[in-house]
């Protein structure tokens, strides 16, 4: 069901549409570069603290090639950006011309009329170059509302030395991980896995692993309570109860990374944004090769991790639409993507960038590229981001409150139907 016809179909439509609009949008590059655009572009960057310096420089470099343009770079915390943008856009004052938008937000903003459609505008440049999965998240109801900039997914970070000391292989499934946990405990005294119990995004690999998904947007059906949802909750609880994993119900980002850096746990499920952080820890600082990255372990049915990443969206109310489009195109260009990979090890969304030697040889790209290729597209619906809150509550209830996994999955399903009531989900 997960990677079923719906997704394939919509992805195919997306690629076709992107290819079709390419004819209209192509060829504007050189004329625009000659000074067609001018004015001020306000850009909201949502990158993390380690990344924002680079992004600021990149954004301001746009002024060099377009001297009449003034780029106003504003850094906004990822956690606040969604609300800030909605407040500004809905109130029609203070919204940025271009924003670095999380993949799940695009459909939501587009649905509310906050984003300018980009089909047929100069913003779209060589759309067939985009990775299919990354392009999927920019589409809503048949139109393109954003340009992919960075893609990511979850992987299994592991401490090579520790696994070797325990004499175990990198686990390919959660069952294997549970078995290895005993050896890891007895031979090194450490816990096998840090399980993120505070962030609903980390529920997805377990859910996909049991062959499930949150909702099926083509059939308009809530699927989280079909059975795999309960199994996914049960799997997480089992890992914690059997002491194969430790967890927290808050501060998981900080505590998890610290536990992995300090060698208190052998493995953690994490994304490329934490590679730099992990390498600063005492287990890896002097021995960077000690960090291994593998695909997320499989559940009983499948193996899958969610597709994440960042897109560039243009505000519908921008007073400087033409310049904003040109700026978004630049920020999504192969050249900028190559730069962010070289400087920050982020994963490009353009196929051509992966052919660049500096990118192809990047160790982190080598780790994550196969994982990204197999990442699971999320339901790109307006409510996509809202679906996480009920999952968070029930993760708490199962992991700390003793609620049965089946009941928890049922409750998530009920909440989803409430959230999706306007769309008449079954």
């Amino acid at each position: 069901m997960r990677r079923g016809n719906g997704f394939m179909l919509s992805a195919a439509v997306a690629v076709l549409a992107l290819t079709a609009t390419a004819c209209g949008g192509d060829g504007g590059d050189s004329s625009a570069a000659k000074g067609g655009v001018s004015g001020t572009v306000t850009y909201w960057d949502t990158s993390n603290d380690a990344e924002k310096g680079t992004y600021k420089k990149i954004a301001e470099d746009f002024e060099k090639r377009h001297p009449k343009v003034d780029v106003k770079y504003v850094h906004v915390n990822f956690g606040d950006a969604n609300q800030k943008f909605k407040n500004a856009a809905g109130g029609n004052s203070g919204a940025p011309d271009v924003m670095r938008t999380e993949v799940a937000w695009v459909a939501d903003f587009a649905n509310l009329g906050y984003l300018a459609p980009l089909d047929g505008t100069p913003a779209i440049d060589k759309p067939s170059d985009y990775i299919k999965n990354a392009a999927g998240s920019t589409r809503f109801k048949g139109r393109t509302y954003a340009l992919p900039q960075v893609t990511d997914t979850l992987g299994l970070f592991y401490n090579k030395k520790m696994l070797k000391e325990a004499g175990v292989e990198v686990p390919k499934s959660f069952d294997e991980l549970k078995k290895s946990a005993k050896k890891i405990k007895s031979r090194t005294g450490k816990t096998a896995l840090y399980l993120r119990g505070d962030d609903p995004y980390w529920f997805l690999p377990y859910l996909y692993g049991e062959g499930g998904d949150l909702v099926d947007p083509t059939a308009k059906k809530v699927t989280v309570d079909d059975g795999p949802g309960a199994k996914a909750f049960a799997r997480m609880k089992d890992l914690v109860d059997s002491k194969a994993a430790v967890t927290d119900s808050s501060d998981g980002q900080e505590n998890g990374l610290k536990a992995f850096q300090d060698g208190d746990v052998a493995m953690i499920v994490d994304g490329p944004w934490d590679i730099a952080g992990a390498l600063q820890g005492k287990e890896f600082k002097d021995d960077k090769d000690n960090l291994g990255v593998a695909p997320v372990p499989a559940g009983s049915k499948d193996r899958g991790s969610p597709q994440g990443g960042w897109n560039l969206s243009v505000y519908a109310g921008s007073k400087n639409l033409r310049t904003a489009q040109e700026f978004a195109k630049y920020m999504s260009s192969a050249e900028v993507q190559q730069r962010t990979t070289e400087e920050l090890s982020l994963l490009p969304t353009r196929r051509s960038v992966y052919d660049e030697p500096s990118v192809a040889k990047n160790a982190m790209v080598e780790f994550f590229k196969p994982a990204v290729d197999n990442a699971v597209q999320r339901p790109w619906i307006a409510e996509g981001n809202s679906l996480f809150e009920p999952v968070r509550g029930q993760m708490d209830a199962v992991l700390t409150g003793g609620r049965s996994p089946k009941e928890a999955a049922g409750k998530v399903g009920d909440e989803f139907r409430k959230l999706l009531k306007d769309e008449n989900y079954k």
Partner: protein
Amino acid sequence: MAVETTRRAATADAGGGDSGAARAGGRGTGNETGRTGGSESASSGTGGRGGAVAGLRRAAQVHWYAWAMVAPVVAVIATIVGYPLLRGVWLSLTDADEANVERVIGVNHLPATYRFTGLDNYEAILGDSVFWDRLGWTVVWTVGCVGVTFLLGLTLAVMLNRQVRGRSFYRIGMIVPWGIPAFVSVFAWKMLFNEKNGLLNKVLDGGGIEAVPWLGDPVWAKVAVIAVNVWLGVPFMIVAMLGALQGIPGELYEAAEMDGAGPWQRFRNITLPGVRSVSSTVVLLSTIWTFNMFPVIYLLTRGGPEDSTEILVTYAFRLSFINSPRDYATSAAWGVLILVLLSLFTVVYRRTLRRQGEVW
């Protein structure tokens, strides 16, 4: 609403100090004035219609300058309090959300398409256990916080009201939590509560006690949020109670001591009656604040684990800011219900006080 309550409370506070002193001298008279004052203001409000119009006309002729002076304030209050309030009530009777209200985005003008739905929102909220569960915890949270804060504040104020060495140092120290922005304190507490790396668990670990899941376990999380709110609320309580204590004439204590009253008797018969009018005001104020204390809960636990620490206002916030599209109508209905609850509480509380002989 908030503005109005505070203003009223402030005037009552100012009047309260006097009457407290008066009552300490002669209990009967103090009560008498309080009662008549109350009933007079009540009757003037419900005066005959015709008389009121004539009265207004006369008042306008005689006191036109006073009306002119008041006008800007009235206009500002009507704009910043009245309009949002009325609009909130109106929205709560519709099915408005972020997707169907009127928006102007650049050249796009999206018209409003929401409908009037009467009391449907209220029916849905009151018929759902979500509301009643939150209300139950909100009441426990409010009573717990205000009770503990008041007791602590009074105790510390009594201790600080004596000639102790370094008194001003202690006073400043106890006011510190008030000076720090609430969100900064909450983040500091969040770090202390951290289950794996927090200071509290490190200390417990040193004493051989197993780590406490401060924010991870429903019961501990409730204890944690109450503790932080008490910490934040005590300074205000100390300042208010210190003020009240200093308003009690020292001769009363001297006289009581001469008559052979022990410390406990002096506390019960002089201190408590002396601070009563101030304490009833601050209890009312902190009840309203605590009932609506959004930042502590939201920043410390986000209402979790699951929804064990979610109070009414944090849930209303979730409806209108976390979910998408933002559900303005239901959130407004929650807001109106919260307002009604607090107004009811205030009316009942004031009536009880009046029955006990307070001035309001």
